[in-house]
């Protein structure tokens, strides 16, 4: 597993931030949710990425979980779009999102 150079954020935190921004850019996603008690975050080095959890996968890479707040759109199709965007963004950054688990935490009835 990659180790961060001294003072640099860990790859886990970099991946979490990347996943957060990528998911928000997907059409239909409004926000990310921090879950009950605000504990659904990736934290480290004094930083917190809300709504994303990255855990080291047994096979290498990371298991990524997201909690989304989305518009009224078909959920399986939305999940597919988010998953594809996350995997592509992670690969481009030289990181490996092994699995992407999505929980739809809330929906908002607002126009696109």
């Amino acid at each position, binding site marked *: 597993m990659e180790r961060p150079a001294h003072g640099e954020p860990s790859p886990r935190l970099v991946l979490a931030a990347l996943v957060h921004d990528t998911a928000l850019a997907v059409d239909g996603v409004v926000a990310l949710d921090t879950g*009950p*008690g605000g504990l659904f975050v990736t934290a480290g080095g004094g930083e917190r990425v809300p709504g994303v959890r990255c855990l080291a996968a047994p096979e290498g890479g990371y*298991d*990524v*979980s997201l909690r989304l707040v989305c518009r*009224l759109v*078909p*959920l*399986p199709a939305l*999940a597919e779009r988010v*998953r594809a965007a996350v995997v592509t963004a992670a690969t481009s950054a030289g990181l490996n999102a*092994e*699995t*992407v*688990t*999505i*929980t*739809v*935490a*809330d*929906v908002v*009835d607002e126009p696109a």
Partner: protein
Amino acid sequence: MLLLKVLARLVELLLMAAIALIGLGVGLYCFSLLISLGSARPDRLLHLPVVRARVGHFLAQLAAPGPTATLAMLGGVAAVVVGLGLLAGVLGSRRERLLQVEDGVEGSGGLYARQRTISQMVRAETALALGVTAVKRPKVRLARSGRNGHVKVLAHRGADPDPGTVDSAVHDRVDPVLEPLGLRGEIRVRLEEPRAAKDAS
């Protein structure tokens, strides 16, 4: 619920500490029967004779009818209510109820949705159906496995159009939401009572 859980944890901690202290006191008392502990007598350390002198009078009033007994009864009822709340906090499930839309066995990761999310989606779609004037919050019941469940929808309609048309319009909007999620819908459409009739009843 979160507040109840925090309260329950706090009371749990305090009760554990109190039980531990009482246990220590009883232990010391038992030791004092075998070994002389000098002045370290637990009943004296806890000032039990003084407590008895102060509380004994109140206990006597409790036994007799009067305002103190009423106050004690109200206190008892409040204690029962607090106890039930604490039990709910301790025994209540901390897990979110999630519908498993995709299980992620093929290694891509799963897709889950909260009960409330499903309810909101169904309600919003029902409200958009032709002829629907109001929708009660749909009730979502998930199977223990979280893989399927059913949703009860109660919509109200005006006098026009006819019930069949409204029912069909609601199904047209709600079924495409429920079917991909593996949920069954139980949709009822009722004629909305006029406001005057509602006020009279």
